[in-house]
């Protein structure tokens, strides 16, 4: 399955792509449909014979034959109607399965930045509500299109055969149809797009509210949240009604067109029967066929409606698929030739998209393999940003980062990421067992002993012993049933278990007590002999053994050196250190 939107297909082209793998089923479905429809146009003719024969006072046998013929057509129809549904509706479910799969696979490729600006609820809405609209089109929609076109392509001819003149007169009101279609087409599309956007808003609101429920409750703002949600809902209703305004006129109007055809038929046909131009049987058959046309006529309205709605939704799904993947920036797919995990950053500058000021300015440093880098600095000084650039979650504005003597720009994203184990500043755990979380990067998640050893190294051992289910404890969303420090340590254990050449810790001991922190640091120091380590921390003690310490301020390196050098420099680092030391002294005295 290679559903891609790189060459910017239109929603229509993409729909074709989506259906392509199921051509076979569509063909089967179409064959069933033709059989059904052929069987379905028979009964009026049979009826004509039956009535004409009754009129002529013929014997009972003809009637019985007619009855049998009716039953036969019905049996054929019954069987193939079953198949047609299976094929068409089945295909629609299969296609949206593919679409959902493609969307998710694409989401997995999108860069960090996409997720920071896109609301989770919006993505959810596109993968459910929009896909629902598309499925409607692909299933019932296609079925109805084919069915209706069959009737349009056959019934008028049979009618012409029965009575050309009468048929032509009867059909005159149908000229209205194309006019009406052109009138409503665009407004359905646009209004449906608005409705889907509102639906996204609703689901985003709900999602954000529910994720922040502790704040909502803690600050007692339930009522204000409810009224915000209510406002969102009202907007949705308003847009939905706008759509309903068109729909509820459009469909009956199409019916009316057919009805006028029947009126015309009754008048002229009646006159012709009286005048002896056609038989009563033909007249009744024509009347039946007109009735048969009323369904495809209704179908037109319906299809146009569904089609426009689904194309609006398809466009919204394509918006996701058109986002360039993070790997799009890979300049080459060859593996880097460099080795080791030495890091060299030269003259690196970076500004976040949409930001007013640069996040990083002229950063340069060198870190040998197996060395430890400590980074500290005030809030918002760019520490996490620097880490993100190292891991290529963003691309540097200017300057260069080299790892193992290769410019990271040359390293394909996937191989670059094989180099890093990362403990993010904001812990994110999956709602799986602790074991599965720790062995997140492992193929084989069924190694409790391995998981336990990493848990121990992250200082989580004693907590696990307290849990009745130990490693198998199931976590709630984001690990809600763990304490702050426990979460952080699971995240640390996950990074340690990944065993990558470069370990990045972004303030990963902020929520643990000193004793546990010391244990963790000691175990890291052991580990650090093998990996290059970057530690960001606000606690100076965690950094003092680092081979190089950077004090960042406002995106710039304010000071850089070893702990000793920085103390001698007597600058900001030294002052910060003193402040933490001083407290200690003060408290001691």
């Amino acid at each position, binding site marked *: 399955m290679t559903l891609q939107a790189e060459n910017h297909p239109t929603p229509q082209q993409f729909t074709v792509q989506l259906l392509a793998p199921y051509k076979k089923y569509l063909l089967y479905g179409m064959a069933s449909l033709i059989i059904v429809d052929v069987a379905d146009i028979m*009964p009026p003719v049979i009826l004509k014979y*039956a009535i004409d024969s*009754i009129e002529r*006072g013929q014997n009972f046998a003809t009637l019985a034959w007619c009855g049998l013929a*009716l*039953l036969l057509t*019905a049996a054929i129809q019954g069987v193939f109607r*079953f198949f047609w*549904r299976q094929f068409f*509706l*089945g295909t629609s479910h299969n296609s949206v399965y593919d679409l*959902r799969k493609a969307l*998710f696979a694409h989401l997995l490729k999108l860069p*960090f930045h996409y997720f920071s600006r896109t*609301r989770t609820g919006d*993505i*959810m*809405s596109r993968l*459910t509500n929009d896909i629902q609209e598309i499925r409607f089109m692909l299933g019932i929609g296609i079925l109805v299109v084919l069915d209706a076109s069959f009737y349009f392509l056959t019934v008028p001819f049979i009618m012409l055969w029965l009575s050309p003149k009468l048929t032509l007169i009867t059909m005159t009101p149908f000229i209205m149809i194309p006019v009406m279609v052109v009138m409503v087409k665009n407004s359905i599309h646009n209004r449906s797009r608005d409705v889907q956007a509102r639906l996204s808003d609703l689901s985003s609101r709900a*999602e*954000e509210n529910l*994720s922040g429920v*502790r704040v909502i*409750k803690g600050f*007692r703002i*339930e009522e204000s949240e409810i009224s915000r949600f209510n406002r969102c*809902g009202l907007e949705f*209703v308003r847009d*939905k*009604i706008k759509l309903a305004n068109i729909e509820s006129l459009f469909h*009956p*109007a199409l019916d009316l067109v057919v*009805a006028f055809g029947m*009126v015309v038929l009754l008048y002229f046909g009646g006159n012709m029967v009286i005048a002896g131009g056609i038989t*009563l049987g033909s007249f009744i058959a024509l009347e039946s066929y007109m009735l048969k046309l009323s369904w495809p006529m209704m179908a037109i309205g319906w299809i146009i409606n569904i089609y426009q709605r689904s194309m609006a939704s398809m466009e919204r799904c394509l918006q996701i698929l058109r986002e360039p993947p993070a790997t799009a920036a890979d300049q080459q797919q060859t593996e880097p030739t460099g080795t080791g995990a030495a890091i060299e950053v030269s003259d690196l500058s970076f500004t976040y998209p949409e930001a*007013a000021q640069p996040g990083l300015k002229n950063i340069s440093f060198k870190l040998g393999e197996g060395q430890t880098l400590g980074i500290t*600095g*005030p809030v918002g000084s760019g520490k996490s940003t620097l880490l993100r650039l190292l891991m290529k979650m963003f691309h540097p504005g200017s300057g260069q980062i080299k790892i193992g003597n290769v410019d990271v720009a040359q390293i394909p994203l996937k191989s670059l*990421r*094989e180099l890093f184990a*990362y403990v*993010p500043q904001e812990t*994110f755990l*999956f709602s799986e067992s602790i074991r599965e979380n720790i062995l997140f*990067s492992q193929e084989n998640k069924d190694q409790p002993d391995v998981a336990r050893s990493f848990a121990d190294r992250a200082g989580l051992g004693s*907590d696990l012993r307290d849990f*009745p289910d130990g490693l198998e404890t199931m976590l*709630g969303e*984001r690990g809600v*049933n763990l*304490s*702050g420090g426990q979460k952080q340590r699971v995240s640390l254990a996950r990074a340690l278990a990944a065993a990558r050449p470069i370990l990045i810790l972004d303030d990963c001991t902020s*929520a643990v*007590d*000193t*004793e546990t922190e*010391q244990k963790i640091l000691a175990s890291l120091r052991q580990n650090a002999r093998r990996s290059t380590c970057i530690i960001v921390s*606000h606690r100076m003690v965690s950094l003092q053994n680092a081979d190089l310490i950077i004090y960042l301020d406002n995106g710039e390196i304010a000071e850089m050196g070893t702990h000793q050098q920085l103390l001698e420099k007597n600058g900001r680092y030294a002052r*910060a250190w003193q402040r933490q030391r001083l407290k200690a002294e003060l*408290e001691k005295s």
Partner: protein
Amino acid sequence: MDDSYFNEDDIKAPAWDSGLAWRMWPYLRVWRSHFIVAVVLVLLGTAVHIGLPLILGKAVDLGIKGKDYGLLLHYVILYAAGHTAVFVLSAARSWLLQYTGQRVLHDLRNALFTHIQKLPISFFDRTPVGRLVTRITNDVATLAELFSAALINVSSEICILFGIGGMMLALHFKLGLAALITTPGLFYIAWFLKVKMRDAFRLARAKLATMNASLAENVSGMSVIHIFNQEPAREAKFDQMNLELRDAELTSVFYNSFFVPAVTVFTAITLTVVIVYGGWLVSRNEISMGLLITFIAYTQAFFDPVRQISEKISVFQSAMASAERVFALIDEQPEPDLLAGEEFKTLHEGIEFRNLNFAYTPDKPVLKGLSFKIRKGERLAIVGHTGAGKTTLASLLKRFYDYQDGDILIDGVDLRKFSRTSLRLKIGLIQQDVNIFSGTLLENIFLADDRFDNQKFDNIIKELEMESLISKLPEGINTQIYERGSNISAGQRQLIAFSRALATDPEILILDEATSSVDSETEAIIQKAVQRLTSQRTSLIIAHRLSTIRNCDRILVLHNGRLVEQGSHEELLAAKGHYHKLYELQFSSNGGN
């Protein structure tokens, strides 16, 4: 996948349709006048609809066969008028139903959302957000289809059914009976398939929720997935759920596919019966040709609504499956009335914890016989190992959870006597896990529109020295912050959370690791600000960094849910216990050099 937290808890309620329908009644009742009008429109439409073949039959018998041009024209005009009336009636009905359906849906969605807002925190601990979002949006929408499209239309179709059936019996009882003889068989098939379909839809709804929950989680944790190169594994997992969803849907299609064919066959059987028996009657001159034609038209008209109804059965069943889920959520026990109880205004003496026991799950006690006092105006620090129960203690004060055993007394009065609203407003808690919403800085600090206060805002910004933070944002205080604060730094998020708590003027302030992600310079600023802003207030400071608590009057050391030491900094150091050890580790050992 069997153990996953995301697997939907089965809803096995007997789910009587009538019971569910009854539960929807309150939402429909509000709009009953709309529905009554709709029903009137439906009835009128039905009457006209039934009348049309009659006119046609008359036109054939009297006009055409009677060779009376004038009479024919007369019926033609009547026929045209009838169709025009159908147009007007059905446009009006369709609009009204869409409108009312959307309003009912809106009410129901609001009711659901409002109800969810009242559920206790423990509910959210065990329910993934994605599942709830699915119920609020998808399940409610499915249910709404019932109101806007199915319910009234089906009742109109049932009216037509009865009207035509009655008409046929009235016109010619025996022929009518013969025409209707097959219907019970159809009902039996419908009932059988209905049960099957309901099961399939239930499964499909559950799978949709599961998939949606997993989607939400994966999207939120995308950076972790990326960094650990776990895209293939995640994709495979998602694919599994996606497949299960598809298969459940395909099962419903399978059963759904039986209906319409069955109707086709029954139509043909009936038509045959009518033609053969009716033809025989005509030949014996018992009925007129016109009547037979009317009967044929009626037979076709009779099965049209049958087919429509059978198409709707799937809508009905999926709506019922959704209704079960929506009402199961509404049946969740909410927190007791947030306003019930005395209002907590000011603290006079202090808070006392007396022999408090608490456990989230019965097999794992978290707080064990905890007793201590906080005096009014005191700054009390709580330190202790991670997982000791500090956050839990704060949650209990906010009444996020109910404790099982022991007492918390405020000025000697049981905490539970006070209304939750007043407690939650007067006890300001800065949570360990910061949650920032999308919106501006101002919105994030005051949270509710009616609490905006620019004066206070300026004051807080000044006290916390947040000007530099604001100046960095592209549009200052009006900058849009993204969901979860993903475009600001962790420390900045914490500062915002801090200002949030200060903005409510709390009587008691609890700082749960409120400065864990900020540098010590900023921390000093915050501490000064807190001191000024809450000088007369009582505060409870939970921290791991001992420098954070150095200004506290008293320190409690919590270990494994028990209080192991308490006293002032000096006392605790002199006691050479737990605190002394922590202290040594943090300040003296220089990180184990």
